[in-house]
C-alpha cells in the first residue's frame, strides 16, 4: 500500500523528537529526562519506518526502549535523587558552548543547501516487504566479518562486566 500523509507524519515525528530531546537536557529530575529520551527514541523508530526500514525500527524499539532505557531507569531510580536535584544543572561555559553550536549550525545549513549535490538521492531498492530478509542476507554474506567482530566485541564486554562485578571468580 502507498504511504499516507507522509509529510504530516514526518513533521510530527521529527518535531516530537526535537521537543523531547530538548526536554532531556532541561528537566531537572533525571527520571523525567530518561522518559523524554524514551519518547525521542520512539520517534526515531517511527522515522525509520518512514524510511522503509521496518527491521531497524523494530530493533530500535526492542534494544533501546525495551532494553537499554529500562536499565537506565533502573540505575537512576536507585541513585539518590535529592542530591542531584540540588546540584547546578548547567555549567557556565558560554564560549565553548556557543562555538560548538555555531559550528553544528553551520554544518546543518551547509548540508541543507548543498546536500542535494553531495549525496546521491537514495532510491528504494528493496520493497518494504523484503526489508528484513535483505538485512539478513547482507549481514550474513557481504558484511559477515564486521558482524562477527561486533559480536566478539559484545562478548568481551559481557565477560568484562562479569569480571568487574565478581570479586572472586
Amino acid at each position, binding site marked *: *500500500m*502507498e504511504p*499516507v500523509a507522509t509529510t504530516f507524519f514526518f513533521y510530527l515525528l521529527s518535531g516530537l523528537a526535537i521537543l523531547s530531546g530538548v526536554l532531556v537536557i532541561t528537566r531537572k*529530575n533525571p*527520571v*523525567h529526562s530518561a*522518559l523524554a529520551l*524514551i519518547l525521542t527514541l520512539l520517534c526515531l523508530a517511527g522515522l525509520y519506518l518512514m524510511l522503509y526500514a*521496518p*527491521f531497524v*525500527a*523494530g*530493533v530500535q*524499539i*526492542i534494544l533501546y*526502549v*525495551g*532494553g537499554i*532505557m*529500562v*536499565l537506565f*531507569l*533502573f540505575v537512576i*531510580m536507585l541513585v539518590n535523587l535529592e542530591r542531584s536535584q540540588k546540584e547546578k544543572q548547567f555549567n557556565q561555559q558560554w564560549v565553548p558552548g556557543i562555538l560548538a553550536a555555531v559550528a553544528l549550525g553551520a554544518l546543518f545549513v551547509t548540508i541543507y543547501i548543498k546536500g542535494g549535490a553531495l549525496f546521491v538521492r537514495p532510491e528504494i531498492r528493496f520493497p*518494504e*516487504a*523484503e*526489508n*528484513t*530478509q535483505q538485512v539478513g542476507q547482507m549481514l550474513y554474506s557481504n558484511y559477515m566479518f564486521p558482524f562477527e567482530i561486533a559480536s566478539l566485541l559484545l562478548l568481551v564486554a559481557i565477560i568484562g562486566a562479569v569480571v568487574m562485578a565478581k570479586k572472586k571468580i
Partner: protein
Amino acid sequence: MPDFITNYLDKNVHVTPGEYGSPFWALVYILVVFGGVSMAVVCMNWLERKILAHMQIRLGPMRVGPHGLLQPIADAIKLILKEDIIPEGADRFVFWIAPMIILLAVFSVYTVVPFGPTHAITDMNIGILFMLGVSSLGVLGIVMAGWASNSHYPLIGALRSSAQMVSYEVAMGLAVISAVLMTSLNAEGTGTLSMIGIVHAQYAQHVWFIFKFFPLGLIAFFIFAVAMVAETNRAPFDLPEAESELTAGFHTEYSGLRWSLFMLGEYAAMIAVSSIAITLWLGGWMRPFPNLLSGPTWDLAFSFFPALTFFGLAGMTFYSTMRMPRHSFFRVQTIGLGAFGAVFALIGLILLLPGVNGRIQDIYWFIFKIAVFMYLYIWYRGTFPRYRFDQLMKVGWKILLPMGIGVLMLTGIVALRTELWDFMHEALRRLVHV
C-alpha cells in the same frame, strides 16, 4: 455505499485491511478487536474466580446474578466508584501515565495478531519482532508506576517484577528465533517474521512447528510457555503481587480505576502472549489436520464445531437452570440463567448459517486455542506453588536460557543437515588430497 467501504469487500481481496490500505475497515477491525479483548478480560475475570473456586472445592461468586454471572459488572462499578487516591509526594504525571503506558503497549500488540488469513488489523514484515518489542514497553510502565508512587514497597516491587520480565524476555526471544528459523525451510530458503507468513509456512510444511524436528519444536514451545507465564507476572511466577507473602508489588499505591487498568493490562497481555505461542507453534488459525483431513467432507465436518461449542455451552447452562432451587426467591435468577442459555443457543444457530459459517472458521479455531491457554493459566494458578525470587532467577538464567541456546543451535544444525554433511565431506576430501 461509498467506495471506501465497498472496495475492501470485493471477493478478490485476500489481504488484511491494513495491507489493502482501507482506513475505514482497519478502524472497524481495531474497534472489534479491542472490544473483543476487553469483553474477554471481563469473562476471564468471572471464569478465573469460578474455575479456581471449583478447583479448591469452593463455590466462588454466587450472589450477584445466577452463579455470580453479573459479578464482573458489579466489580467494575465498584472500581469506578471508588475514590481515586494519589499518594502524598507522588510524581503526579508519571503516576498518571504509567497505567496508560502498560495498556497502550499491550493493546498495540493486537495490531498484528492474526485471527485468520485476512482477519488481522494489519500484517507487518516485522510482525513477531513488533509484538516482542512493543510488549517489552510494558516494563517501562511497571518501573514508572513503582517509582512514581514515592513509597518503598512499590519501588522494590517494581524492581522485582521488571528484573523478572527483563530476564525472561531473553529466553523467550531465543525460543521465538528457533521457530522463525523453521519458517525458512522452503524452496527459496527465506524465512519470515510476519505473523500471517509464519502460519502459512506451517501450512506449507504440513506440520505445526511444535511437532517439527521432534522434540526440538516441543522444547522451544516449552521454554516459551514458561517464559510467557513469567512475562505476564502470573502464578507460579506472580512475585509482583504475591499477596500471601509480600506486599503487593508496583501497584500497591494504586486504587480504583487506575488499579483496574493494571488488571486489564495483565489479562490482555495474557491473551497477547498466548496468541504469539499459538501463531508460532500451534498453527495459528488452522483447524486440526488441515492437510491430512482435507476435502469438502472434512471441511463440512469441522465447520460444525463452532455451533456445537455454543450448543454445548447452552446445554450446560440449561442443565444448571434445571438444578436451580425451586423457590420464589430464585425465580428471577432462574429466568436470567435460562435467558443466558437461550442467548448461547441463538449464537450457535447463527453460527450454523451458511454465510456466517464459512467466515468464522479461522476466528473460531484461533479463539478456541486462546481459550485453552487461558484455562491453562488458571490451572497453573490453582496447581503450582509460587517460586521464590532466587529460584525464579535461577530458572530463567541457568535453565531456560542455556536450553534456548541449545535448541536454537540444534534446530539450525538439523535444518542444514544436508548442507552441513556436504560441507564436511568436501572439507575432508580436500584435507586428504592436500
